[in-house]
């Protein structure tokens, strides 16, 4: 069966099935509010695909994807705020939250975000560029394992604290009340549905890109670096460069997810990008199965769904459930949900006497 999913036909039918669910079934079954919630979960899943690549394939425990998610989100939010202000007060107008804070002059770094092209370029280039610089600095010095994890987590914490201190970025409250998304009013249900479709399409594109990377020679090389980095270097490769690429791709995916999260959810604040959300991103990947292509997607969707469902019933129970889930997966199912078929197969073989004889 696994052979089928590796074949060309299997891949196409997998994508076709996913597209049927995302573009057909989900909009039919879910109400406007639920569909918006699903779009939010899909944003988490996009981050998870990147983590699956960097962590599952590359062995880099990226505990700080909130940084790149947050960058994408704030860059997009700045553009949306600028567009709103321009619509209300003409070019050069100050966004509403600044007006309330008594700011009369637009800060210089906000000005270019009036341009949609500049904003999209920034969303693609800035987090990716930062990841390349960070990756070069860290991986060239052969920082890895727990040290890299702690470093990346500290970065997410520092970034959130930095944002809380920035009054020109909304401080603790972040940026919210967006009215327009590239000219479309956001409170129109039709446009909300369009946003959902854009997000779902982005997920499919990101999964396809990840699949191509995994199956390429680069994907094999990345696994080689994960398992025996020294050996790769002694074969003449710049192993740090190999890791930087995966890290930067994961950052790009997180940034795209953040940029979509802002119009979908309608608010971005430091609370959505710090240490706790960064661990959330990782949790979904661990539960789904970091080594597989769709494990992270399934895990991220499942964790986000469980969080919402539980929080609706028992607001304080989620934290405990999250911890319990994490412990169970690490202790009982290190390969995540995606490894269940393989584990079940092993158990079945173990309990079949003739199979034991056949192997001896």
């Amino acid at each position, binding site marked *: 069966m696994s052979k089928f999913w590796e074949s060309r036909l299997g891949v196409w039918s997998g994508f076709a099935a996913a597209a049927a669910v995302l573009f057909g079934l989900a909009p039919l079954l879910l109400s406007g509010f639920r569909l918006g919630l699903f779009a939010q979960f899909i944003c988490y899943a996009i981050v998870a695909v990147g983590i699956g690549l960097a962590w599952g394939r590359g062995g880099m425990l990226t505990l700080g994807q909130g940084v790149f998610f947050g960058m994408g989100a704030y860059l997009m939010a700045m553009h949306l705020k600028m567009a709103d202000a321009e619509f209300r007060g003409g070019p050069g107008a100050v966004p509403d939250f600044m007006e309330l804070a008594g700011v009369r002059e637009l800060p210089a770094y906000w000005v270019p975000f009036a341009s949609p092209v500049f904003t999209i370029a920034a969303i693609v280039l800035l987090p990716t560029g930062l990841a390349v610089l960070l990756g070069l600095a860290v991986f060239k010095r052969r920082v890895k394992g727990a040290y890299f994890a702690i470093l990346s987590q500290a970065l997410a914490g520092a970034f959130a604290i930095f944002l809380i201190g920035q009054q020109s970025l909304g401080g603790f409250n972040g940026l919210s009340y967006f009215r327009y998304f590239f000219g479309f009013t956001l409170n129109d249900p039709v446009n909300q549905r369009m946003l959902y479709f854009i997000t779902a399409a982005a997920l499919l594109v990101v999964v396809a890109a990840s699949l191509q990377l995994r199956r390429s020679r680069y994907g094999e090389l990345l696994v080689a670096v994960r398992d025996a980095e020294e050996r790769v270097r*002694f074969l003449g490769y710049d192993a740090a460069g190999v890791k930087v690429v995966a890290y930067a791709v994961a950052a790009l995916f997180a940034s795209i997810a953040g940029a979509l999260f802002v119009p979908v959810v309608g608010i971005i604040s430091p609370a959505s990008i710090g240490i706790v959300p960064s661990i959330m991103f990782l949790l979904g990947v661990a539960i789904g199965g970091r080594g597989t292509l769709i494990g992270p997607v399934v895990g991220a969707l499942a964790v986000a769904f469980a969080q919402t469902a539980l929080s609706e019933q028992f607001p304080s129970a989620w934290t405990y459930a999250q911890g319990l889930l994490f412990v169970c997966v690490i202790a009982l199912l290190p390969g995540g949900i995606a490894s269940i078929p393989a584990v079940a197969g092993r158990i079945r073989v173990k309990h079949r006497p003739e199979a034991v004889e056949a192997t001896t």
Partner: protein
Amino acid sequence: MNAIALSCTDIRVDFDGFTAVDGVDLTLRRGEVHFLIGPNGAGKTTLVDAVTGLVKYTGSVVKDGRELRGKKVHHIARAGVGRTFQTAAVFENLTVAQNLDIAAGAARSPWTLLRRRTSLPAAVADTMERIGLAERAGAAAGTLAHGQKQWLEIGMLLVGDADVLLLDEPIAGMGQAERETTGRLLHDIAAERAVAVVEHDMDFMRANASRVTVLHGGAVLAAGSVDEVSADPKVQEVYLGAAEREEAVDAAAA
């Protein structure tokens, strides 16, 4: 005399005041299997580490007129100096073919890397024949027998076009039949390359060495053919020990 492939001059490695390698000269020639022997702590592996760029050293390592000292590990590897490790380092989750394909591709362009491997390069197929793993092409390297992993690692250097091979205990943990196969493999690959072997096993050394360098306490104690080295009283005293002295004399006479 065969052509010189790699010449090391006055190599000295200091670890915080402890001198692990103390002024070693070493010349590796094409067509020779050069054994580096010596007791534990003699500096054999450290010397290999130095040449391949893993530890800092003073002195000079020259290959084809190029100084290798101060170059990064992966640049030295690209210059054609390959090494193996005491515990065979292969990519356990990848197949034999994938292992060799990666080893063959250090010079690939990013564009090639981002595409799928559609067919095996001819060099990979040839090397699998050579190291006797053609039938295991699709097997994960982690499922290979211990000796097969060592051969795979040697194969990875061959397919990567290394012409100076530094092998760290290639027969550790091998049975007699595997040792003999490895010995034949060493001579086969040494035909157009320089091969240096760090080894403890005296029988294996006597059977396969074209030239021997004995290290002791970080310095060269003796160098020459198997017979010359075996007959050297310093070597007998310091390294081979009284119990083996007679045997060494026999070997020299043979």
